[in-house]
């Protein structure tokens, strides 16, 4: 993958997803920060709201789920693009989050080239 210098966040309770996503993005980012649930991400981001370039966001997580996290981050003034990355693949769920304003919506499982494709679109 070509070199980009972006600060990326992943909010996901699955360590294997965090680890695989990191390997997909390896050598192409400035930093990769992970949070195991939405609440920890909101706590961190409220003082750093637009200090990142891209956020990967899971849907089903303990404490605070993806949609609630997204709405709270928008309330805080988030402008960073959010990519949903979730096992939920019902078209109604996709419509809900696209209409809410996420940049795009990816479904698990995923592959490295799919992640690269989205990154290339976002950072041409």
């Amino acid at each position, binding site marked *: 993958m070509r070199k980009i210098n972006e600060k990326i966040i992943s909010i996901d309770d699955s360590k294997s997803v965090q680890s695989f996503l990191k390997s997909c993005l390896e050598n192409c980012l400035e930093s990769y920060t992970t949070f195991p649930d939405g609440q920890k991400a909101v706590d961190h981001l409220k003082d750093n709201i637009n200090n990142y370039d891209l956020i990967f966001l899971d849907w089903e997580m303990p404490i605070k789920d993806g949609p609630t996290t997204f709405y709270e981050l928008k309330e805080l003034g988030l402008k960073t693009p959010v990519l949903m990355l979730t096992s939920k693949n019902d*078209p109604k769920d996709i419509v809900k989050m696209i209409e809410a304003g996420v940049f795009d919506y990816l479904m698990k499982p995923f592959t490295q080239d*799919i992640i690269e494709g989205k990154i290339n679109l976002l950072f041409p």
Partner: protein
Amino acid sequence: MNNNALKFFADYIQKELGIVYVDANYFQLDHRLRQIATQLEIESVEALYEKGQAGITGQFRSLLLDIATNNETSFFRDPNIYKVFEDVVIPSLKKSFPDSREFSIWCAASSSGQEPYSIAMQYDSVKEQDSTLPPLSIFSSDVSDAILARAEKGVYSQLEVQRGLPARNLIKYFDKRDGDQWEVKSSLRDKMKFSKINLLHDFGMIGPFDVVFCRNVLIYQPVENKKKILQKISQKIKKDGFLILGAAESLFGLTDDFSNVQSASTIVYQKK
């Protein structure tokens, strides 16, 4: 990595899809199996092999069969081409053919269908902004019966629809089917016709077309074949119509039938 495990997965792919994994590609297979193991929280490919022997289902099966698909085949491959299609080709056709009752497009090597469906989606989104545009018809051909049948069916795995296709387009133009398959809606499929054509043979009674997409075909042909194919394609394009080639291809030294039209970093060719 032990070869028994690689052979086991290669045999599985061959049994399910008919695609043969030769030994020379085992290195690549091994790499992809490691990625699958990581994603499924399995510690090694050996453990994946053990799990596989007990049965391959669900996400494991989806990821494994996806190994065999060609990642080069994605929706909206080379996004610049689609931008030029929207910014240059469609406005030019509208100007050259103001009374046209339909715009006709030929995808001369449509493979598994991502290209013609992407063109149809792009045109549809432009037409939503400009209702004076005529309807679109797309003729798709390929040399392989099997791949053409796939294109005509318009059913893709969940991994395939995530290659190049924004989720906005997925929910707008596809219906979800059982088994995490996604099917192109009839509103797009109705614009399509499919037929087997070998570009080295006679094309038969087709066209003429407003636009021909012939991407990443000529690159694999010797110069004499390129010239022959281009001469025949040229006869099937209307004056002021367009030929669109792959990003790494050009008409230089092959034909004088076209003028170069450059937009941003992409060149398309307009029939003189």
